[in-house]
């Protein structure tokens, strides 16, 4: 501390603000996690492995993280297009469309789940259309992907949008003057500038999607070995008063999410370095 005080800092009161930050993070994030790990630890290694190593859990993880990945990939494409349109063009109703993007943030997820299920159920407006083609959406893993696309869209759009706003169109003009074609401009000029923001958005969207419960349980059908998500299994274990089993699953999900986020961060760092060198 004495060392820090001696150093010059543009932020006055570093000690105080760091103290507040640590206190707040502990209270809101670290202590709850510690309790979670404490509960899971009560199961012991054997109990932990027994709780997670079975076909239903494995399949639910596959469904949860698989559907999240698909939803995020789809959103990366359409979120980017949406952000592009909102930043680069002016058109009537733009402000309203911009406001719509945040709706999935604001809506209680159960409401979203019920609305989507009503729409995509075999007797629903869109569901009946697909049903006539022989495609079922609600009560299948496809339904889960749709719900996850819905809830994770804002993360991509809202992270890409400000970066895109700062990206100068002059760069593209310069590339054109230097003889680049449209694909080259996108691949070599625009995309590298947006990639960090896209990755951040994708990471947040993925984390959000993997933990989603409220909207998914309505549309999933929850059939074991088909459309059952891990958060539902956690709820089921709680319902059985199996606290340790539930926390074991929660810790497993947390570790997987953490690994995925770590991986994305590493890609981010590698990407920054590469672009820095160019």
């Amino acid at each position, binding site marked *: 501390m004495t060392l820090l005080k001696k150093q010059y800092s543009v932020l006055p009161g570093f000690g105080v603000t760091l103290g507040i930050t640590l206190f707040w993070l502990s209270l809101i994030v670290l202590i709850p996690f510690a309790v979670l790990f404490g509960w899971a630890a009560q199961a012991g290694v054997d109990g932990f492995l027994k*709780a997670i190593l*079975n*076909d*239903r859990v494995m399949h639910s993880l596959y469904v949860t993280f698989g559907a999240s990945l698909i939803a995020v990939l789809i959103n990366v494409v359409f979120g980017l297009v949406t952000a592009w349109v909102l930043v680069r063009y002016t058109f009537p109703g733009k402000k309203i469309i911009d406001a719509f993007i945040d709706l999935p943030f604001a809506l209680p997820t159960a409401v979203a789940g019920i609305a989507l*299920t*009503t729409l995509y*159920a*075999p*007797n*629903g407006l869109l569901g009946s259309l697909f049903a006539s083609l022989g495609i079922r959406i609600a*009560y299948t893993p496809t339904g889960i992907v749709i719900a996850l696309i819905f809830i994770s869209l804002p993360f991509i759009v809202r992270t890409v949008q400000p970066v895109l706003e700062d990206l100068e169109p002059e760069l593209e003009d310069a590339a054109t003057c230097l003889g680049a074609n449209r694909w080259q401009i996108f691949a070599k000029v625009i995309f590298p500038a947006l990639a960090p923001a896209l990755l951040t958005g994708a990471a947040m969207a993925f984390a959000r999607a993997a933990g989603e419960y409220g909207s998914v*349980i*309505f549309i999933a*059908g*929850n*059939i*074991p*070995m088909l459309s059952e998500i891990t958060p*539902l299994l956690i*709820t*089921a*274990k*709680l*319902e*059985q*008063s*199996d606290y340790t*089993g539930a926390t074991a699953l929660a810790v497993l999900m947390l570790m997987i999410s953490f690994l995925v986020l770590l991986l994305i961060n590493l890609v981010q760092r590698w990407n920054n370095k590469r672009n820095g060198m160019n």
Partner: protein
Amino acid sequence: MTFFSALFRNVSIAAISLTTALSAAHAKDLTLLNVSYDPTRELYQEIDGIFTRQWQEKTGDKLTIKQSHGGSGSQARSVDNGLDADVVTLALAIDINNIARKSKRINADWETRFPHNSTPFTSTIVFLVRKGNPKGIRDWGDLIKPDVQVITPNPKTSGGARWNYLAAYAWAKAQPGATEESAKQYLKDLYSHVPVLDSGARGSTLTFVQRQIGDVLLAWENEAFLAQKELGKGQFDIVVPSLSVLAEPPVAIVDKVVDKRGTREVASAYLNFLYTPEAQRIAIKNFYRPTDPSLAEEAGKLFPALKTFSIADLGGWDAANQKHFADGAVFDQIYLKK
């Protein structure tokens, strides 16, 4: 002013202040918290209104009863974790057992404190089918006919769904020549006819009634009546199977809480009130079967007679839970072995 009138005035003032003092010592403001499960909202609303009025007439105390409703398992967990409920009125005995076992806020002998294993009213599991019963569903065996879709919630997350499951199991076990294996096979067939496993009973009712999915809904009798009378008038028929389960949603006093708050007397009176003909009639009105034998005839007009078995016949909740719903138990097995 005479001596007498002055005396009279003084005495009457004294008398008035005495009565006020006495009634202040007596009339209290009391509150009770009843933590219950989902579909009992309307039932307890009506019962609470009458009980608080009677309690005030009897004791002069102003009683307010607060209700909390939610899934039976999660409600039990809240009370276990410290929600100060004076009484619990839940869907399954095992939920109350869990409180008695974990936090010990309810004494272990709760089941013997009130009549009929502390169950004031009962219900059963019936089939709700579409008007005219187009698929001809009469009994449990018809549920696994090739083109029949069955709607029932997930027994892992829904207390009500465990009654459905156990009723199906008991029927299969009661068939001539049935074995444990054949009963399991029946359950496996049955659940392969379930296209949506909602997490709660109300969710299943919605799937069946609103989304028009499935041919038959396995439901609590009171929910089936409610769906028939209110949600979709004239769209559904109730089919009573040959054998079903006697669903006994129990009640208990939360000992630790009433002792702390000094509400044992009123809490006991409240739960005993549930057994009076007056409360039992309200139960009938809300489509629960009364336990008071003097009302059997009255109830018989509404509820068809059917053969039932109770959870005790399956060895009690703990045994049934261990055998069917624990991790890796029968319900998990029927989905895993393809």
